[in-house]
């Protein structure tokens, strides 16, 4: 490796990592938090079979699972202005990632809720708990335990998907890399470099996942 290339890689490192800390990580954290809230609500209305809301949930999931993430980003960011709705790049990205991930995660949550045996609910009623108390104290905690590994998977997936936000001018890690490439003409080294940074973030998250699984694994769903 030439000294010039090493120099470029070292110089570019903060230029890539700082947008990572300032944009990629907040974008992921915010979007995933909203996605979890959306998913829990969408899964609950389906689980509780609330008429109207259940159909709405199915429709929402159908749309956001059935269309490409990139198309969704473009519709919101480049499409909506023609209706007079202008959203800044970052909030537009948060909106799309939340809705998109929310659709997938609500299926994960629904499956997890349904995996809790009916006997748990019956026992709740018989010990004098209300439906909401049973959901909050018994069913949701058990479902979250079941949903934790697949949701961790989704989170890791989302970290990488945020690179798509570069397409709607969000100055995240990937866009930062593209800028350095445009100046230095070293695409191979720089794209590998940013790939490695994504890998480091995902490795850390994988570690957090195994720690979390142990933490909530003090009982077993048997």
């Amino acid at each position: 490796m030439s000294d010039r290339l090493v120099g470029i890689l070292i110089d570019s490192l903060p230029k890539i990592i700082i947008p990572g800390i300032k944009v990629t990580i907040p974008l992921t954290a915010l979007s995933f938090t909203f996605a979890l809230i959306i998913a829990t609500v969408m899964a609950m209305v389906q689980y509780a079979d609330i008429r109207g809301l259940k159909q709405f949930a199915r429709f929402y999931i159908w749309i956001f699972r059935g269309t490409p993430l990139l198309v969704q980003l473009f519709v919101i960011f480049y499409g909506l202005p023609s209706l007079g709705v202008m959203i800044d790049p970052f909030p537009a990205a948060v909106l799309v990632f939340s809705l998109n991930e929310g659709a997938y995660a609500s299926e994960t949550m629904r499956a997890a809720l349904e995996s809790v045996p009916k006997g748990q609910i019956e026992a709740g009623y018989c010990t004098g708990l209300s439906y909401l108390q049973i959901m909050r104290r018994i069913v949701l905690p058990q479902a979250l335990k079941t949903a934790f590994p697949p949701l961790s998977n989704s989170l890791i997936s989302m970290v990488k998907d945020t690179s798509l936000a570069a397409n709607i001018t969000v100055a995240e890690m990937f866009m930062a890399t593209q800028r350095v490439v445009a100046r230095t003409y070293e695409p191979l080294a720089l794209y590998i470099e940013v790939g490695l940074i994504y890998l480091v973030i995902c490795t850390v998250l994988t570690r957090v996942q195994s720690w979390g699984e142990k933490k909530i694994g003090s009982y077993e769903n048997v």
Partner: protein
Amino acid sequence: MLKIESIKKSFNGLDVLKSIDLEVDKGDVIAILGPSGSGKTTLLRCINFLESADGGTMTFDEDTYDLGHVSKKEIAAIRKKTAFVFQNYNLFRNKTALENVTEGLIIGRKMPRDKAEEIGMKMLEKVGMADRRDYYPHQLSGGQQQRVAIARALAPNPEIIYFDEPTSALDPELIGEVLTVIRNLANEGMTMLIVTHEINFAKNVASKVLFMENGYVLESGDAKTFFENPKEERTKEFLRNVTREE
């Protein structure tokens, strides 16, 4: 104390309960016997609204309810006086033994935690499970889980406890510990309705018997008379079959 009149239930056109009457006085231990599929469990589940009955009336203490049209509020009020012990224990899997017992007190009945835990420990002691207070259900044997489930049922001091085949899911050598706990409760005067296949246990513990077949009550009454002098031919046959020497 509890009176059920002409309770009916059908599943998809199949009549599982065909107008059953039942009367429970305070201190009664009633064994509900009968072959599989006779409707015993359905009867118990309908009485505690885990299934909704198609019709009939229930008189609990002074209040009468139409079982076909009972409101959620009425159900909640009735359930405050009753407790249920399941065949599969159904302990809350994310709660320890003690938490299983106190959950209904703290959350359902808004009792202060220290008071609830005091009661919880007393109940666990009663079923011989105090030393397992911090164990999760999966760390306990079936018999231990069922004893915790009985402690959970006892905790709110119910007027009546329903047992749905409490030993059917247990290994044979674990049945005894659970039956002993139930027998102790009977001796203390607890009112209980027990669906069971344990004929000897019913003979020793029950004060009354309800014998069901095909959704009907075939014979009912005093336990001693039932076992020593059954009236119905079918009852005699059933007792002969279940007590046959192997």
